[in-house]
C-alpha cells in the first residue's frame, strides 16, 4: 500500500472526529491530531480503534502513546502491515 493511500484512508477515518475543519484542507504527515484538527483526546482512542479495523492491525499501548500526528499513524501502520 502506498504512503499516499494510507494517508488518504487515514483522512477518512479521522474526519468524523475533527473539530477544526480547516485542518483537513492541508492534511499531511505533519498534521497534528490535537493541535491542527482539535480532535478531542477521548476520540483519539476511537481513531486508534478505527485504524486497527481499517488496516486489520493491532496497535499496542506503546504505539498508541506516540500516535500524535498523521505521520506517526502512517509509520505505525506501515510497520504493522510490513
Amino acid at each position, binding site marked *: 500500500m502506498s504512503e499516499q493511500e494510507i494517508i488518504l484512508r487515514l483522512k477518512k477515518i479521522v474526519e468524523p472526529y475533527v473539530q477544526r475543519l480547516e485542518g483537513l484542507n492541508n492534511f499531511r504527515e505533519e498534521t497534528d491530531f490535537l493541535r491542527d484538527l482539535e480532535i478531542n483526546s477521548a476520540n483519539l482512542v476511537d481513531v486508534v480503534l478505527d485504524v486497527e479495523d481499517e488496516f486489520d492491525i493491532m496497535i499496542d499501548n506503546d504505539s498508541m502513546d506516540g*500516535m500524535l500526528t498523521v505521520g506517526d499513524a502512517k509509520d505505525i501502520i506501515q510497520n504493522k502491515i510490513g
Partner: protein
Amino acid sequence: MIGNDIIDLELAFKIEKSSIPRFLDKVFLAGEQEYIQSSKDPEREIWRLWSMKESAYKAQQRVQRFERRLNPLHFECMLIDDRHGMVFSEENKWKIISDVHQSHIHSFISDPRQHIHMMPKKSRNSKDLLPAIASAIAMKIQEISLEKDGFGIPFIRLLDSNRIIPISLSHHGNFSAFVIPLINS
C-alpha cells in the same frame, strides 16, 4: 495545580463503550474495568474515570513539561465517593473532584488554593470563552490574549504587562470549562 476536563455526555453516549473490550483495554486498568462493569451506570462511570485521568494528565504535563502523549493506562483512578477520587501516576497523586450531571461531567484537580470554575453552555471554542475568562480575572477582552506554549499548554497573557496567568481549558461537544488559579497578592 490546575487541570480540568469536561465531557458532553450526549456526544459521549453515542457509542456504547462498555461493550467494546478493545476500547476498555486501551484506556482502563483491570481494577477500573471491574469497577465500571459492576456499577449501575457503566457508561457514565467510563466518562467519569476518563475525565479524572485527563485532568490528572493535564496537571502532570504542566508540572513535568512533557510532550503530549496518549497513555491513559499510566493514570490509575481510585474512587472515594460520588464526587471525590484520586489519580495515581508515577510518583504523583492527584486529588480530583468530579461533578457528574445528567448532561455532562466536569472533573478538575482539587487544590486547597482557590480556583475559579466556569461552564458556559454552547461555547464551542476558546474564542467564545474569552469574555468569561476576562471577567474571571477582572480584565477586559481586549486586554488579554489566550495562547499556548510549545507543549500545547494554554495560558493567558496580560497584554499591557506581559504577565502570564495559567489556565486549564476543556471543550467537548456543547460544553466548555476552564480553571484559573486565584493569585493572592
